């Protein structure tokens, strides 16, 4: 055995990030997804200060300008919308609203859903039942319809939009957390903590919550995509974000009337929505494989012993 292992140089102990990077390199689709999301994140943060004004600059001469021409400068490469505003600039500025709303909504629903799920799973008191029935009610209502009704009565605004999106997605986190807690609370290390005298608060926060978190983060990555789509649909219907603010969904809505002669107005924001959600799905499926010790070999370079 020593003979065989000695001719493969033992790799130096790799850090956690390095191991992740190696596994990411093995899955080409996930790698592209990660690069795309990274570029998008940089553009969202650094873009608006650089080209912010361009997104609102009207240019009647560039109305419905066709894409793929450098004649008017690089910002017009993907064409311009009905008021002659460059689509590239609008995509970058729209990203901030789109991703910001989705991020805050996902974070809120994950936190409330997670906390309520921990309570509902660990406690056997009456409020555990109340929490679950509330979640059932929210789930049994078509979420888009609920959003439509709430936004119609409360009036569309960014805050209301975030609240509605967070509420409709919350039961998913609640149910997953509760199911995991029901399993974890029967584990022996929880009994061990109890026999040492640990209180409920300590058991839930120190012993159970850290084990539920990875699952919630995976769902959040998937849900981020769903929330972007839901927000886009609401904005498309005009109940989401209101002008002069805009999101990708609102941009698709703007181009609806010009699909026949200026397809690019709807096409580019639609494509970015598609790429973002697709990337998030790919990356979270990669993360699931990576987090599972039984499956991780699929992402590793398997070196066979020479024979």
């Amino acid at each position, binding site marked *: 055995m020593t003979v065989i292992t000695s001719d493969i140089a033992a790799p130096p102990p790799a850090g956690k990030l390095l191991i992740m990077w190696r*596994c990411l390199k093995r899955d080409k689709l996930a790698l592209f997804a990660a690069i795309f999301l990274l570029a998008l994140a940089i553009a969202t943060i650094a873009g608006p200060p650089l080209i912010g004004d361009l997104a609102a600059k009207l240019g009647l001469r560039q109305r419905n300008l066709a894409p793929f021409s450098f004649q008017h400068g690089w910002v017009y490469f993907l064409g311009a919308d009905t008021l002659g505003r460059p689509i590239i600039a609008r995509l970058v500025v729209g990203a901030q609203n789109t991703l910001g709303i989705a991020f805050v909504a996902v974070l809120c629903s994950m936190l409330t859903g997670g906390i309520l799920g921990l309570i509902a799973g660990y406690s056997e008191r009456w409020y555990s039942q109340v929490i679950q029935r509330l979640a059932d009610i929210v789930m049994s209502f078509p979420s888009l319809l609920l959003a439509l009704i709430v936004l119609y009565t409360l009036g569309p605004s960014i805050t209301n939009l975030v609240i509605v999106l967070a509420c409709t997605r919350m039961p998913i986190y609640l149910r997953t957390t509760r199911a995991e807690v029901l399993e974890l609370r029967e584990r022996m*290390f929880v009994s*061990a903590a109890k026999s*040492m*005298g640990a209180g409920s608060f300590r058991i839930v926060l120190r012993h159970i919550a850290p084990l539920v978190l990875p699952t919630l983060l995976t769902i959040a990555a998937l849900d981020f995509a769903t929330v972007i789509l839901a927000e886009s649909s609401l904005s498309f219907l005009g109940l989401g974000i209101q002008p002069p603010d805009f999101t990708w969904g609102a941009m698709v809505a703007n181009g609806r009337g010009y699909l026949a002669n200026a397809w690019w107005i709807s096409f580019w924001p639609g494509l970015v929505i598609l790429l973002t959600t697709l990337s998030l799905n790919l990356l979270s499926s990669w993360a699931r494989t990576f987090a599972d010790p039984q499956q991780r*070999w699929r992402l590793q370079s398997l070196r066979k012993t020479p024979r």
Partner: protein
Amino acid sequence: MSRFTSPLLTVENLTVEFLSDDAPVRAVNAVSFEVSRGETLVILGESGSGKSVSTSTVMDLIDQPPGDIVSGRITFDGVAIGNLRGEPRRLINGRKIAMIFQDPLAYLNPVYTVGRQIIEIFECHGVASGKAAREQAISLLRRVGIPNPETRIDQYPHQFSGGQRQRVMIAMAIALKPDLLIADEPTTALDVSVQAQILDLLRDLQNETGMALILITHDLEVAASMADRVIVMNRGEIVEAGAAKDVFTAPSHAYTKKLISALPHGDAAENSNKRSTTSSEETVLKVEGLTKEYFFSSGMFGKRQSFLAVNDVNFEVKKGETLGIVGESGSGKSSVARMLLRLAEPTSGKAIFAGEDIFSMNQARLLAFRRKVQMVFQDPYGSMNPRMSVHTIISEPWAIHGDILPKAKWKDRVVELLELVGLKPEHADRYPHQFSGGQRQRIAIARALASEPELIVCDEAVSALDVSIQAQVIDLLADLRTRLGLSYIFITHDLPIVRHFADRIIVMKQGEIVEDGTTSAIFGNPSHPYTRSLLEATPVPKWVAAGA
């Protein structure tokens, strides 16, 4: 023993690796063995020694990748079967070579009746179908000793006991009269007396059909009682092979010697015991009339029924003493432990600890009580939070009971405790999964000691460990008892261990204490028939049984 002709199965120079990012992990290294018709080969080894991987390769049950067969030649009945896949493989698996597993509940499908699962074997191999298959299934169940097979054939796996499920698995395995039966730890999950029945059944079936049997086990007594020949595996390699009697009575390899001398049995245990020498009259814990009753209703409109898990249990633990509680699964011994720690509430009864009844304590008193009494659990893999470092795990009692130790001293005390249980200071920053089973149980003991308890309840604390590690942990517990003046309640189903370690033993059956006495008295002169049956269930070596 029958005369063996040419070997039925030959495995030559088998090497199996599991691939990952790092260098491949070698699970099995250059293993060769053979087995003939009518012969029993026992593969003996601790967990992780590669014994299951060797036989799974014979059945082509290793996924490739991540598994990788580096070298090896497997010949069955004169045909090389190492690279057999698809249809030719299906003609061998189940029909010529059959396998039974450790945990029959996991391998039987819970949503199909037992009968349907047996009939499926006949049908998918095209041997019989319909009524004929059912008739055969019934006679099979009768053969493996299931009472009333005509009615039980239509029941589901959960309606059978653990031993009966294992019988059903055996019935499925022998359905097509295989030439070779591979049994992977078939009795590990079972109690001693059930284990003896299953081993008897396997022996009878072998005599009847003349099949070859490969038995994989970590249990020395099971190995001795079944084996014609033994191979001993350690870290993926065969360290010793030979006729059973030679290996057990005159082991040549250092590892085998260590295994066989790990736990003294019989009179040896009586003489070299680790019992406490000082006797004290001070009572630590007094349990009176402890009873636990479970209520359940059978079916939707069924009558409310009750089940007495623990019935009127009385005992005392003196300072510095070890009380052994022995019984099979379902005898209520673990329920007693859980109630004493208030992890479950009793139906009635008292437990007086330091002059106070445990069951009527309020929250504040209970917190103080939980400093004085600690528990070491059966499964060192499950009893520690996988995401906590060893330092966090051991210092948790101090975080819960704020007044034991100021935070500044935690680090030094953790190091002290780790050294006390025979671990190294640098282990404090590691996580549970980086340790072996024995090391983890040491961490669990260090955690139990952290709050400076007076009484430690060990619930099957060494049952999940391998023999040689069991001995180490027992020695550690005995040593700590002498040094720190602890008392133990040591719950187990394994008689030899308590003989070595306990001062007094109570034997439990179906929730009641059937016998109570000093260790020497229980082993030397058992008065209750149940205690005697437990002692007799300990397997007898095959060469001794054959000579008798």
